């Protein structure tokens, strides 16, 4: 039983660390700010879950379990907000590369609003 739990812990740790590696590779390889955002924020949702699972499997304490759950829940609540804020700011400050996008349905909307506000300029 203990060996099984140790093996499970090991798998969780290695796969969780692999998610950090994925983020690093993504940061290096992806071409623009938005896709790098994806790589930098998202794999850690699973990465942290696996790391916390590994901690839980080793500690095996019921008092610790709610703490691990709360840690993961707060990650779930904050990751989309930070990703959204960076993505939105990046889009608005033209740190996007239109040639990287196959379609941009927001561009038309923004253009329509800009035209509506200042028809002369």
């Amino acid at each position: 039983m203990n060996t099984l739990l140790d093996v499970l812990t090991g798998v969780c740790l290695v796969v969780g660390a692999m998610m950090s590696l994925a983020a690093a590779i993504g940061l290096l390889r992806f071409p623009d700010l938005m896709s790098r955002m994806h790589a930098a924020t998202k794999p850690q949702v699973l990465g942290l879950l696996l790391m916390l699972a590994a901690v839980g499997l080793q500690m095996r304490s019921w008092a610790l379990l709610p703490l691990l759950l709360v840690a993961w829940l707060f990650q779930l609540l904050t990751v989309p907000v930070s990703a959204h804020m960076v993505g939105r700011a990046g889009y608005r400050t033209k740190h996007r590369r239109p040639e990287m996008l196959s379609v941009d349905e927001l561009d038309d909307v923004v253009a329509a609003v800009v035209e509506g506000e200042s028809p002369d300029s």
Partner: protein
Amino acid sequence: MRGTKNGAAKHADRRPWILKRLPLLVWLVLVWGALWQDFSAGNLIFGALIALAVAQAFYLPPIELSGRFNWLRGLLFLLWFIQQVMIASFQVLYWAVVKGPRIRNAVIAVPLRSPSDLLMTAVGHVLSLIPGSLVVEVDRGSATLYVHAMNAPTPESVAKVRQGIQDIEARLIQVMGTKEELAAVNAEKAGAPLLTHAGEPQP
């Protein structure tokens, strides 16, 4: 991009203050207990006092709940969500290694069915947590999310991403949507067309 909230008459909530805040208070007490790793009565009561003070001092605008919550659907949703996160995490790893600089993304407008703030926020959170998509902009008035999606080079893949997000919304409606929204989702399964809040025809 901030539209005005239309329709949706506010129901006057006549329940006492403490009942309206109960979910928030319970959550705060649970976080308190978890942080201390101590769920003894004394600690929880002290936590409840602090939760009351915090809820008074940092007033949050009330959330309009639908009054429906299906726990079984909620559990199924959680399992489905973890499965999606796992698949998508490895997908992003694969794209990072194989596609790298050649990846083609898209910014996609996704009209949603429900104008409810809570559901829009929930859909936005879930799709942002699943690797490969991220909310860039929200049009609250027409209940439209503008989503940045990875690896969507063709119109077909764009349509697939849009359907996937509307599927997330359908699942969330099954968990906690209003009865009307649930009826609409069930009608879709029987072959009815998807009616978005913005009312534009679906491509």
